[in-house]
């Protein structure tokens, strides 16, 4: 690799060290458009670059919060319908080839190709096309002006090396060797992937933005959460992202570990199917009635549930977004926990326990419903079991049905269910809201339809006035909370466990790995594996 020595940081004494990350599952692919799990995302994030990187505030309005990455600069067109990105002249792929504008155009083609089932494709709907003005300049053309335009263009795509991939048909890309042996432009280069055991990335010493301070990062693959935790506590790993309540005490006792705060952008809820469980458009016999939904919501002691399930690691969810993304959390009101009122509301809606079996009924139908739970999520399963007991207290019978992820998705995709335990990870700027709760959103499997909510969200996302946007969001949240298409249960404060010798910048909520290249080891606390140095693998 030909690098520019002038750009490498002079402080080489700081460089070095090995970070071992425990992950509960093996990455599926390292081909960025297809990344699914968070372990895929982390490795890809370290090896590939975006054109520009969002700031720690996750500000999606305009380009103010963004910093140059592969693009050294950009120019807005006068009508704001196109942005021209100038590629950093020093940017190089790990194989030494320069990064060029054509790579950007090619990347957009891949992400939007019908032959590639890219997970972020729906986020790119506002981009009409990407053109190459000259080898260093790529121009994004938009369909309409929105405040999130810049975010749309930069956040969802990692730039791919067209010189390595263009020879492969789009359909074959997913299967190409590249997906397990990627070449990116990030400050880490891909090292090796031993199936089922570990993925290793190493510092790219010739990176124009300076070599990563760590020598290498190794993702050590465990078979499940428990095994990954074992690796951490056994000292086999330095870092683990998913700390469960039960492990907190042990981390506190472990002399070498510390917790690093991290705001995860997830929230969990019980989603009602507002239409009939047969999949038809008829209203659901129970959940079709907003009073009933509100009553059920009010019957749930969310605070206790969160205490049980997450202890200090969870907060009661306020609505369909984590606090970190809600501009003003105090400006809308929650439904109270009030079982007495809940019972009265159910009574008045005609749901009465006439036969004293503990379950209310109306017109011969029992207030009883199946609750789909994906078996992949221990957290959601716990929530379901806790909810079951609480709703029993007001005369509603919940039958949790723990399904294989696949069966779960089949049922929810087909809208054939009563209720489900949902969990979403929000994207910065709440840009995914129409997708998840909008009337046309493909993720809105409970078929919540509120024109008011849709209009408010649309206004919030399209207005260029930040203040107005916040007001729209507050009203939109109030609307959806009042409509209660779901019981908003919990969001996680998700601190990560890290070995004490690491010095790290604040973790970005949308991905702890965003600044991985700047992580370093306190030279005084180095342990054996930090002293291996680069390129000593046999």
């Amino acid at each position, binding site marked *: 690799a030909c690098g520019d020595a002038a750009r490498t940081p002079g402080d080489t004494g700081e460089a070095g060290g090995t970070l071992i990350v425990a992950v509960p599952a093996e990455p599926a692919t390292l081909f960025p458009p297809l990344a699914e799990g968070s372990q895929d995302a982390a490795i890809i994030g370290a090896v590939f670059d975006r054109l520009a990187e969002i700031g720690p505030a996750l500000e999606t309005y305009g380009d103010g919060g963004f910093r140059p990455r592969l693009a050294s600069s950009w120019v807005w067109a006068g009508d704001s319908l196109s942005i021209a990105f100038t590629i950093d002249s020093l940017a190089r792929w790990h194989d030494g080839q320069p990064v060029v504008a054509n790579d950007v155009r090619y990347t957009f083609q891949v992400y939007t190709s019908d032959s590639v089932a890219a997970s972020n494709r729906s986020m790119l709907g506002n981009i009409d096309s990407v053109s190459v003005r000259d080898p260093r300049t790529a121009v994004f053309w938009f369909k309409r002006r929105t405040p999130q335009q810049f975010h749309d263009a930069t956040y969802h795509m990692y730039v791919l090396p067209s010189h390595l991939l263009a020879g492969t048909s789009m359909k074959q890309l997913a299967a190409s060797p590249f997906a397990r042996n990627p070449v990116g432009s990030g400050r880490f280069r891909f090292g090796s992937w031993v199936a089922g055991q570990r993925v290793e990335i190493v510092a790219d010493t010739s990176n124009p933005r300076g070599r990563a301070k760590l020598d290498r990062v190794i993702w050590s693959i465990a078979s499940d*959460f428990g095994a990954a935790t074992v690796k951490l506590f056994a000292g086999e790993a330095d870092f683990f992202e998913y700390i*469960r309540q039960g492990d907190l005490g042990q981390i506190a006792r472990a002399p070498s570990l510390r917790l690093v705060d991290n705001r995860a952008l997830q929230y969990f809820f019980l989603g009602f199917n507002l239409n009939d469980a047969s999949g038809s458009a008829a209203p659901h016999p129970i959940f079709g009635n907003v009073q009933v939904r509100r009553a059920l919501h009010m019957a749930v002691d969310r605070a206790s549930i969160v205490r049980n399930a997450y202890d200090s690691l969870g907060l009661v969810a306020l609505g369909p977004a984590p606090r970190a993304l809600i501009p003003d959390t105090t400006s809308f009101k929650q439904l109270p926990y009030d079982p007495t009122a809940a019972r009265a509301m159910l009574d008045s809606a005609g749901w009465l326990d006439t036969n004293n079996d503990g379950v209310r009924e109306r017109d011969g139908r029992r207030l009883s419903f199946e609750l789909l739970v994906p078996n992949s999520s221990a957290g959601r399963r716990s929530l379901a*079991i806790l909810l079951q007991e609480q709703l029993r207290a007001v005369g509603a019978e919940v039958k949790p049905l723990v399904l294989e992820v696949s*069966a779960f998705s089949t049922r929810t995709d087909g809208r054939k269910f009563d209720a489900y335990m949902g969990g979403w990870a929000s994207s910065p700027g709440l840009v995914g809201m129409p997708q998840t709760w909008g009337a046309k959103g493909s993720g809105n499997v409970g078929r919540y339809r509120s024109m008011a909510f849709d209009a408010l969200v649309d206004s919030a996302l399209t207005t260029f006035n930040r203040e107005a946007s916040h007001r729209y969001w507050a009203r939109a949240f109030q609307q959806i909370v009042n409509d209660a298409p779901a019981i908003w249960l919990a969001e996680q404060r998700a601190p990560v466990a890290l070995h004490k010798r690491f010095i790290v910048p604040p973790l970005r909520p949308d991905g702890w790995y965003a600044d991985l290249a700047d992580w370093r080891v306190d030279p005084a606390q180095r342990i054996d594996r930090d002293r291996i140095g680069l390129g000593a693998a046999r």
Partner: protein
Amino acid sequence: MSLDVSWPSSASIRGSDRSLWVLLGTLTLLAIAAPWVSPYAPERQLDIVALRSAAPSWMHPFGTDSFSRDVLSRVLHGARISLGFALAAVLLGLVLGTTYGALTAFAPRTVSTILRRAIDVALSIPRLLVLLALTAFLGPLSVWQLVLLVGFTGWFATARQVTDELDALQRREFALAAQAMGVRTARLFHRHLLPHLAPLLAVTGTFAVANTIALEAGLSFLGLGIQPPTASWGTILQDGAGSIESEWWITVFPGLATIGAVLLCNILGDALRDRFAPAHVAGVVTPLPGAIVSTSSDSPSNDQRAIGDPESFHRSAPRT
């Protein structure tokens, strides 16, 4: 050679046998009486904040789990499910296996050969793999569906054994004598041969119950067996598996119950086998616990029968 016993044997139950029966009886009684003897309802969340994962105490001798449910009550109710499940699945398997085995043994040669080959094939497919795939792919199964699945995949070995046993019995001289007497096949089977299958079925069945208890625990441990919140030993184990270090009581008690029950069944199987089998039959290895998987199907030559008659060697294999 078959398990030849003087059937109405006057041999009294030995002392150790008696304690075995007492233990088994207690276990069965506890399982049946679980709703009355267990202190709480198995799914009752007592106090999700204060009693979350409480360590064993006088109030909760086995502690509580992360949903503040009483582990003792769950283990007791789990006994019902786990033991009942194993019994039902094994009975189903025995019925299927005996029927198929009898059909095979009495069918005309070509049909019989085909039936035998079919069992060979079925036995070569690893059962656990199939069960894992099916339970996962068919989605969460109700307890009864699971019983059917486990029963339907668990009878091949029995069928093979029954066939082999019937083959051997049919060659015994008393069976020939009955034939010479002009006894019809149906009568020959139920009056003369079936009583000889009883010990074999009892022994196989007992070991199979032991296996099936373990199998249920294993499937549930992987989240593919009985579904929560229903308490079975396997599901309780699974509840606690993630926190075995800090909340050991959730896994240790159902684990011990499982091991205990499996052990009792295995001991019972051993005892039954010793009782039914002649003490010393040259070269005969009597069936050992486990789903019986067989390999060779070539008929033995006359000379092989002298030592280690392959007919009589109940080819056994370990558990799934």
